[in-house]
């Protein structure tokens, strides 16, 4: 995982932007399949077996649900399979449903991977240039969340010691939660105003804001960025010249051979992070065995 985490945030952002936009905008079954494959492999590599299959317990029913519901609403297509309540269920609508489900699962998988790799410091680094005020708010919230949770526990303990918050009834639990919430917000406002005043006293707003980070552009960043851009450009050339045009209706198009190079470029792009992560794992195990 370090292999991917160590990349410069800008490079990672460009990569995810490229993969996500191609996945969302290009409706071609092979592109979608390539994206899904890349997302699955990456997720498997980041998550380990147990969590991966737990997540699949959500994605697989989702895929099934979309596949089943699409033909119920869409009656386009020429190949009728059977009739349901007087409406034709067509092969094309089923295929389109499968494709759509795959696309949605792929997007969700890539978003999950992005969530794992884009930690708070990376978001702040990217956001800090364009929106210094909001990125400061962002970083403060990341600090406040654990702090307030701790305080909330203290307030709750005190309330429990006073004999409140003990009954199991729904209204009591709700009212107790409201009381704790209200107390917490009162404390939080006072506390934060002190923070604000002290920030002002230390000279906030004088001169340009900098933020701490450990990111430095390295050779592998430039390499990764260059490969990403080249592969994306190849894919986009295929898309813009209409090579990856595909229609499900009225009848499913055949996949032309002319689009294969664009699909191949995108497939390489999509599995690249998986390869990098696995290569690192192999190297780690190799060194472990050597010592």
């Amino acid at each position, binding site marked *: 995982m370090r292999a991917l985490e160590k990349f410069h945030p800008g490079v990672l952002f460009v990569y995810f932007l490229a993969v996500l936009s191609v996945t969302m905008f290009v409706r071609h079954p092979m592109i979608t399949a390539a994206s899904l494959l890349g997302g699955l492999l990456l997720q498997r590599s980041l998550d380990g077996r147990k969590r991966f299959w737990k997540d699949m317990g959500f994605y697989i029913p989702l895929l099934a649900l979309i596949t089943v519901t699409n033909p119920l609403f869409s009656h386009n297509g020429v190949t009728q399979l059977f009739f349901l309540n007087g409406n034709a269920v067509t092969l094309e609508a089923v295929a389109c449903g499968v494709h759509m489900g795959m696309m*949605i699962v792929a997007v969700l998988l890539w978003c999950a991977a992005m969530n794992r790799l884009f930690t708070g410091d990376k978001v702040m680094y990217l956001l800090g240039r364009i929106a210094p005020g909001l990125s400061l708010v962002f970083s403060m*919230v990341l600090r406040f969340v654990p702090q*307030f949770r701790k305080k909330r526990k203290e307030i709750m303990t005190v309330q429990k010691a006073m004999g409140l918050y003990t009954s199991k009834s729904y209204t009591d639990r709700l009212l107790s939660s409201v009381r704790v*919430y209200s107390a917490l917000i009162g404390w939080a406002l006072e506390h934060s105003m002190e923070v*604000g*005043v002290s920030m002002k006293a230390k000279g906030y707003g004088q001169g340009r804001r900098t933020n701490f980070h450990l990111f430095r552009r390295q050779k592998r960043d430039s390499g990764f960025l260059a490969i990403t851009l080249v592969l994306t450009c190849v894919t986009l050339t295929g898309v813009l010249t209409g090579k990856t045009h595909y229609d499900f209706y009225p009848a499913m198009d055949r996949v032309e051979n002319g689009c294969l190079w664009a699909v191949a470029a995108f497939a390489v792009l999509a599995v690249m992070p998986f390869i990098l992560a696995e290569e690192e794992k192999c190297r780690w195990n190799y060194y472990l065995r050597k010592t």
Partner: protein
Amino acid sequence: MRKFSWLSGLIFCVIIPVIVVCAARFPGEKSYAPVSVGIVCIALVPFFLGFERRKPGTAELVLLAVMVTMTVIGRVIFAPVPGFKPVTALVVITGIYLGGEMGFLTGAMGAFLSNFYFGQGPWTPFQMLTWGLIGFFAGKLDRQMRNNRVLLCIYGALAGAVYSLILDLWSVLWWGEGFGTKRYLAAITTALPYTVLYMVSNVLFLLLLAKPIGKKLLRIRTRYLDA
């Protein structure tokens, strides 16, 4: 958000229509979903820019951070009472007592940040814009709602319904080939119990929280902000 700058005008009058027209002309591709995400993202920009432009002071920044944090942990604190989340209510209260801009930013940032804990996805921009606008319009109606509990409750119920309707719109755009009235109606019907739950919980939380939290916010405002 006192004045819409020329940039906001450009975004709302030129860029978004251009995107819509281009998307409609895009050769053969039906790409409602990504286009809608793009438009929603762009619609968020003027609000954020307006905030950055006027160089907010430390008190405002910290206050915003506190309100955002409270929306994030509101989803955690009320875990013992499933289904009841104070997020919308808190965003409305922020809008009423601290102004529309603060309401918008609390809603939008709250959605963005709490999704770091609950899962980020293509729905994030929709949530950001919906909660943001709920806070923004609450700020527009502040005087009326501060003194009128009935109006406050109506606004809360309406906000719950609108939130649900907009997110259903998102699911319809995503889970099917484009928009269809039939699909949308089906989505609304399946989501109906949740919509009702949202509406009830919003009203309940507004009734319980508006007075105590409003008092605290007003105090902070007179003591630190308006001075």
